[in-house]
Structure formats: C-alpha cells, structure tokens
C-alpha cells in the first residue's frame, strides 16, 4: 500500500522539500558530497544509518540550520537559504536534538512560543494562536499539564511538550532529529505512535532521524539509508530492507524476518557465534 502511495507521488508533481547535489561540511570536515535527496510529499520519511553517516547533518541542511558549501536545498522550488526566515518557519518545523526549556516556564507558555512565526509586533497573541495551542496540546496529550512547569515533567512528557510546540507552528513539513533518544522503550513507542498519527490523520510530511532500524522499518513510509554521506537505498521499508542492505549499510550480519505485529521487516542480528564463524570462513 505505502509503496504504491509513494510511487504515485513520485510520478506526479515535484516534491516540496529536496536537496540537490549538496556538499555538507563543518568547517573543513566534509560529511557528504554531491548528495541528492527527495522527501516525498505526505510521507513519513525516516533517515537511518550508522553513527557519523551524516543523517543528522542532512536533517540540519534540510532545515536550513547548515548552509551547504555546494548545491542547494529547495523548499517549494526556492533555495531555502534565500527565503525569509519566518516564511520558512511557517512551512517547515524542526524539533532539534537538544533544546533548553527556560527556567520556570509552563507547558502552555512553551507550546505558545511555537506561534512565533505567525506573530508580529502588533499581532502578538490572537484568538487563532490560543486555539492552535490548545489543539496542539490536546493532540499530544499534554493538555492537562498546561499549567505545570516543564522542569517538573518526566522525559517522555517533556518530549511530547516539545512536539506540541513544533505542532503549534502549524507547518505542513515537520523534521525531527532523533525524537526518541534518551526515552524509555514505552515512551519511544509513544512518541513514534504520535508521529504516525500526525502523519496519517493530518497529512503532514514528517522527516525523522532514528537510531533504531526496527522502529524505522515499522513506522516509516519512506526510508533513506545513508552510509558515509551517500544514499545506499531509499524506498518503502518492505521493498528495501534486506539482510544484504543491513550488512552493506551497518556492516552487520543479520536475518530480516516479518514483524509478527505489523508485517514490516524486522532485523534480527546474527548470533555472535554465527558471525564469528562466517568471519573465519571469509
């Protein structure tokens, strides 16, 4: 299902967000060269790859945090770097890996700050802002925490609050940099369920960087596998996740079986003994 969905999108209009032959570097250290990526509209795209493969860097470039040294990132056909900052912020939201909740801020206040790109000096807090903030808190299940201080919340609750803030920005595209890091397994699933729901019910395009390949394979409608700054494979998880691909991208021997719950690919790493035997045989 999701595969044909993606294919339809590919064959029609140009996607809203893409990177065109970008070279990404921090100072002199080059992370990726000549990298091109399309984010299919209305997809839940997940970028996976081993540590230091450039997945977070790619996300930073897509959200104009990092200026490519060559090539360009296109949003709605325009180079993202040359667009007005607030205009970008009304189209594309980002939940970064690290963010700081100011001391003594309440949940409602923090979520309200997501309205910044829709506000101006003389239009600081409209009825629409109020409505969207309430709606965002309801969708993320933090409405009853509205008057609590963010510092007092658990890690899982806090991540929901930050997601609520990003939702209040009301962007059709939402980028998430490792949204499940530092969370317990139940909160990880919780956050991913929330993402899937936002994607399905609201038709938002989501792009996430995830560490866990099995989470990626279960939740993504479109998967991009990166290694060393190069796209090794992309497509629906059912089409591309194979034992060969996992070995190529992560250098790990494994079996890929059907997830008994969802039928999506499930990566089971080979036992230590098996890996050792194969290594000596090779």
């Amino acid at each position: 299902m999701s595969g044909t969905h993606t294919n339809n999108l590919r064959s029609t209009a140009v996607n809203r967000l893409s990177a065109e032959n970008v070279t990404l570097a921090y100072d002199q250290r080059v992370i990726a060269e000549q990298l091109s990526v399309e984010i299919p509209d209305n997809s839940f795209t997940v970028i996976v790859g081993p540590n230091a493969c450039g997945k977070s860097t790619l996300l930073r470039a897509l959200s104009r945090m990092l200026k490519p040294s060559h090539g360009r990132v296109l949003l709605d056909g325009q180079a993202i770097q040359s667009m007005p900052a607030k205009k970008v912020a009304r189209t594309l939201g980002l939940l970064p890996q690290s963010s700081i909740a100011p001391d003594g801020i309440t949940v409602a206040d923090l979520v309200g700050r997501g309205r910044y790109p829709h506000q101006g000096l003389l239009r600081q807090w409209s009825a629409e802002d109020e409505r969207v903030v309430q709606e965002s808190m309801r969708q993320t299940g933090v409405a009853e925490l509205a008057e609590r201080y963010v510092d007092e919340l658990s890690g899982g609750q806090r991540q929901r609050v930050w997601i609520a803030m990003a939702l209040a920005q009301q962007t059709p595209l939402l980028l998430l940099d490792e949204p499940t890091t530092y969370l317990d397994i139940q909160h990880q699933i919780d956050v991913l369920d929330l993402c899937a729901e936002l994607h399905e019910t609201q038709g938002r395009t989501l792009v996430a960087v995830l560490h866990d390949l099995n989470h990626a394979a279960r939740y993504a409608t479109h998967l991009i596998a990166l290694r060393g700054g190069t796209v090794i494979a992309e497509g629906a998880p059912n089409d591309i996740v194979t034992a060969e691909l996992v070995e190529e991208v992560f250098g790990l021997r494994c079996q890929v079986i059907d997830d008994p719950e969802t039928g999506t690919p499930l990566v089971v790493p080979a036992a230590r003994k098996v890996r050792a035997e194969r290594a000596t045989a090779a």
Partner: protein
Amino acid sequence: MRTPGGLSLRLDPRALTVVVLLLAAAGAAGVALIGTGDAKIPAADVLRTLAGNGTAYQDFIVNELRLPRVLVGLLVGASLGLGGALFQSVSRNPLGSPDVLGLSQGSTAGALVVIVLMSGSAAEVTLGALAGGLATGLAIYALAWKQGVHGYRLVLVGIGVNAMMTAVSGYLLTKADLVDATRAVVWMTGSLAGRDWEQVWPLLGLCAVLLPLVLVNARGLRMLEMGDDIANALGVRVQRVRLLLMVSAVLLAAAATAAAGPVSFVALTAPQLARRLTRSPGPNLVPSLCMGAALLVAADWASQRAFGADQLPVGVVTGVLGGVYLLWLLVTERRAGRI
C-alpha cells in the same frame, strides 16, 4: 489585549503590576533624593517645584542642582538593568552581567588612561570610559564567540578580561601623581555627585534610540532562550538578533559607566530581582530596566541619608549589597550543580 482590527498585544498582568510599582518606587526615591542634602526640602515642595511652582531658591536647588543628578541616576540604573538583562539572557547565565564580564573594568581602564596619561577634562574622561567599554566588549566578543556562547564560556572569558583590565588600572594608578590618583579613585567608586544636565542629555538620547530597538527584538530574544536551533526553526534570524542586542547591551553598559563610573552589581542584581517579582520566564527586559533605576536611586538616597550629602558614593552601597547577593547566587548555583 485584542482589538477588532486584528491587533493583539500580550501583557502579563503580574509583570505590568511589577513595572508600575517599580516606576512608582523609582519616582518616590527620586523625589526623596531631591529633597535630601544640606538644604532639606519636603517632598510636597519638591513636587510643586518640579511642576514649576516653587520659589526661586527652591527652583535653583531642585531643577539646577539635584534634578539632573537624579535623572542621571535613573538613566544609569535603567541602562544597567536593561544591559544586564540582555547579557544574562543571551549568555543564559545569571552571572553573565557587565560587571562580572569586565566591561565596567574596561571602561575604568579607559577612563584612567585619560585621567593619568592625558590629564583630560571630564568630558574626555567620559569618552575614554566609553571607548574602553566598547573595546572590551569587542575583545570579549572576539575571544568568546564561536558558534554562539555556551554555558560558562562567556563568563570565564569575561573573568579573564576583567582580571586583565584590573591589572591595567592598577598599573596606571601606580604611575599617577597624587592629584590624578585621587581623581581616578573617586571616579572608580562610581558616584552621582556633581552630575549635571551635560550628562543627562547624551544618556537620554542613547536610551531613546536603543530602548525601542531592543524591545522590537525582545520576542526574538525570548525564542533564543530555548537554544539557537529552536530559535532558528521558529524563524528568528539568530545571528542578527543576537549581535544587535549584544551591541546594544555593550553600549548601554559603557554609557552608564561613562556617566557615573563603575557602579557595581546593579546590572547583576536588577534582572534577577525583577524576575523573582514577575515570576515569569523570558528576559523580563522592562521590569529589569525599572528595577535598575529604582535600585540605583534608592541606593544613592540611602547612602545620603545614612552618611550625609556626598560622603559615601553610591557605588560603595551597591557594591556592598551586590556583593552579598553575588555570594548568595554562587552558593545557590553551586547547590543546583550548575557550577
């Protein structure tokens, strides 16, 4: 607050109350300060004279001698409060204030160069202090700024700069003859004594330009408190807003120091006290400004009440009170595990 035309302003009622009360306190302290001195004038007479209905004698004392001094006090306090709030917000650190960072020491060194090496006039000393403060601000920027400020980096660089500037001042003092040295030491304690309209106008002009500029960018600053990435994602032009606000803060601190000498600790304490009163996150710029003005004038009044006219410079009073506050802050920060 909303109007049918789609205009909407967000005002926190508690913050508004705090601002009104602080303004009232600053005004009351100002009136009391005008009435204090060798020739005591009751508050009612002060108010009548300010309105233009006093006797010629009262008019001279109030409007010519004491009003400019109080106005300089209010403006210096306001500049320090606002500058301190900007620094603390950008560095996300309650210790990131102009006195800890060495800006005041930089101004002092600039003033001493003029006093000791050039035996310059009062106006030249003011210019020297301004230049010293700006140069120090630039140096801190060059040393501490790499991909923004993080944690204690700005504070640590500032403490280093502070030490260097103190050394420069100390060296200049040893080189000075007795007359210059006396003049330098008086300047260094921070005092409002003998301030007249010549000091009021430039400071007022600077505040009139910088205040609107700062307030227009205050919402961006509030977003910056959540980290550069979030601010970027929300459409704040991070580098531009931060540079603009830092330059404003350096100008405010340098101008305040140039006008009254290094009045210590107002910039450090005012934003924190204001924040505790408003109980609101965010930079609390206007409450800090009002708190700074009220604090400085109240401290000047207290020193005159307790020790007689112009016996104890206001910088000594704020230094003693602020020192106690700084110790308390260090202890609580340490308990919270942030140092």
